């Protein structure tokens, strides 16, 4: 727990309130779920505060960055006995590995290449295992470093059963270089390389389902998680840390106010909507057995999600219906998987 600090926040003289609540979508406040999860959040709070914040207090992440939140939480759960790989991407760009002779974290951290994260971690883990030391060896990689350029090395490491924790923060595009499409960019997303125009409605292909692909590698632990649902994520991270017979893979939804174009204070809410619409269900696959970890009682229409950000602003009703269909199909398939495994 932090000690008291004299620099408390007070209202500057004459300053007006900036986020005025009314009924328009972008400002309406809808965080009922936090009431429901209040107890869990308090429990998670005790988990999180067990270790100090291992990330530098100041880094260059955008305002409202979901991934920065996730990374801070991740390190506080993993603790100081951890070696962290941050391949090129947003987290590297904001200075997590450091800048000019300084480190962005209080634990050992390094830049692998964009496409060799899992391989380098495998080498580190193998050597420490030889020496009989149990160290958390963890990747925190973007979707480009995971699903695209980094996929071969990740797939190889998974198949070889390397005992590493691989976390992908998926903000659905190459955000560090300024919003270009990636392999996980969903259909119809606007990006700088899939612009919307006379002959284009954004990306014309579906994104690849990275967590399912990793589950198909038959590794001991695969999960999806979302930093808006921190207690769920913390749970999964702890499970991942327990795995000793192969790779753990966690796919993190990672909202991006800059690249998706929504107000910075809405990050948690957008993430919440992704789950509540069944677009991004929270599940885990332990030794081949699928299980939902967060049951959505009544799914929210996908339109609420698409309307919450500019990257889908161009969608027609027809396209939204088609999107709804595919969301429902995916969800049904997942439920079936949970049932039959």
């Amino acid at each position, binding site marked *: 727990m932090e000690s008291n600090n004299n620099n408390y926040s007070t209202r500057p003289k004459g300053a007006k309130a900036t986020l005025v609540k009314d009924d328009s979508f972008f400002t309406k406040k809808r965080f009922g779920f936090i009431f429901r999860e209040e107890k869990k959040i308090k429990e998670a709070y005790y988990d999180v505060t067990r270790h100090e914040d291992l990330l530098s207090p100041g880094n260059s992440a955008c305002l409202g960055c979901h991934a920065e939140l996730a990374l801070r939480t991740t390190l506080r759960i993993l603790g*100081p*006995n*951890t*070696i962290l790989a941050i391949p090129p991407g947003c987290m*590297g760009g904001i*200075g997590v*590995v*450091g*800048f*000019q*002779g*300084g*480190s*962005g*974290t*209080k*634990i*050992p*951290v*390094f*830049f*692998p*290449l964009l*496409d*060799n994260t899992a*391989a*380098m*971690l*495998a*080498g*580190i*883990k*193998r*050597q*420490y*295992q*030889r*020496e009989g030391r149990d*160290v958390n060896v963890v990747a925190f990689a973007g979707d480009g470093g995971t699903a695209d350029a980094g996929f*071969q*090395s990740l*797939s*190889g*490491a998974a*198949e*070889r059963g390397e005992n590493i924790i691989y976390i992908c923060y998926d903000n659905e595009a190459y955000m560090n270089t300024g919003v270009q499409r990636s392999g996980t960019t969903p259909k119809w997303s606007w990006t700088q390389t899939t612009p919307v125009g006379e002959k284009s409605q954004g990306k014309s292909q579906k994104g690849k389902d990275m967590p399912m692909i990793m589950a198909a590698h038959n590794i001991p632990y695969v999960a999806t998680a979302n930093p808006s649902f921190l207690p769920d994520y913390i749970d999964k991270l702890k499970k991942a840390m327990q795995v000793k017979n192969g790779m753990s893979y966690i796919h993190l939804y990672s909202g991006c106010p800059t690249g998706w174009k929504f107000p910075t204070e809405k990050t948690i809410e957008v993430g919440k909507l992704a789950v509540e619409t069944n677009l991004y269900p929270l599940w885990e696959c332990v030794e081949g057995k699928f299980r939902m970890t967060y049951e959505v009682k009544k799914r929210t229409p996908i339109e609420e999600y698409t309307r919450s950000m500019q990257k889908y602003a161009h969608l027609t009703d027809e396209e939204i219906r088609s999107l709804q269909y595919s969301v429902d199909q995916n969800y049904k398939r997942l439920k079936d998987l949970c049932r039959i495994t």
Partner: protein
Amino acid sequence: MGKIDVLNGNKAAAWGAKLARVSLLAAYPITPQTPLVEYLATFVAEGEIDADLVEVESEHTALSVLQGGVFAGARTFTGTSSQGLALMYEPYIRTSTMRLPIVMALVTREVISPQTVWGGQQDAVTVREAGWIQIWCESNQEVLDTVVQAYKIAENKGVLLPVNVCYDGFSLSHMAERVEIPEQEKVDSFLPKPDITHVKLDPDKPMSVDPLTAGPMLTEFRHKQVTAMKYAKEVIEEVRQEWSQLFGRDHGGMVDVYRMEDADIAIVCMGSPAGTARVAIDEMRELGIKVGMVRIRVLRPFPVEEMQALLSGVKAIGTIDRNVSFAAGYGTSYLELRTAFGGKRMPPMIDFIGGLGGSDVTLEQIKQAIVITQYVANGGEYRDVTWFGLDEVDVDQLFDLEDQADQEVKEGIV
């Protein structure tokens, strides 16, 4: 006295790694390096090497695994060739900038296209600006000895650079010959345990590795890299001395010199053709041509001072290259020699390109090269670069044949 065995180049390299007591291995098979991977796997499977062998899915990953291992303090080994090296290029450069003392066998081969799997030196010379030390071997004994020596050079605190032990694909990698395997205890006394701390990922002593580094700092690091490369020359020489005292074998330091004491002309080459050149030199000396050889044993750092000292006084130089440089259409050793003299007065020099795509540099070709170089030494004019197999080499025209000695030399070539 060690054990005498018959080893091909790949097995000699594997023995070198075993004697160096590596703890982490990762390699992906590629012709002609493939047997090396199999030998390493067999050594590990039979418990002869106490190491982890990571069966990677590509060369890119092979080198990356080793980098991770070094970050955790491991002594590592891998090997590759040609396209594998090309695929490895991204982590390859970084190995030298991170100053990781990784040793890698580079079984030299042509690069495609055209589609080929055969020997040549194009792969290795192409990456000579990637910051690795490159040591070129002539025999399988040298391959074994050099792999062990390479760790001592690479892990020296003033060097801390990765080393490629280059040996010609097939000509050495698949050719088996008599090799003496040194005793483990003696190697242990020569090569201490690795102590790599300048980049170490250890939760007990956290640091970040390779943070963003801008101009002024990067300039200093680059300068340090170049300084280390220069210093490596001294270390290579020291290691040579120590090795020859302990094991009684000397393969040369930066260069390997043959019959240069009284030489009028010099042949300069690299890798396996040097062996054939020795035979050619002996034969041509019988016929009265005073020829010697300077073998480029270390291509990076380049033996600039050694070359100047050895070659300034000869009357002509003939370089033999199993590779080409696209800078000016010469082979690499020709180009590097020109740079080594840096505009200073140097003897006339001609280049011979041969042995590409797995063809032999034959005894006859080297003898021709010697005669042509002698002709140039005598003031004759000859084309700057001769491509064996492509350029017609008519040595008849070099002789007026009134002289009995000329007649003998001419007959000696074929």
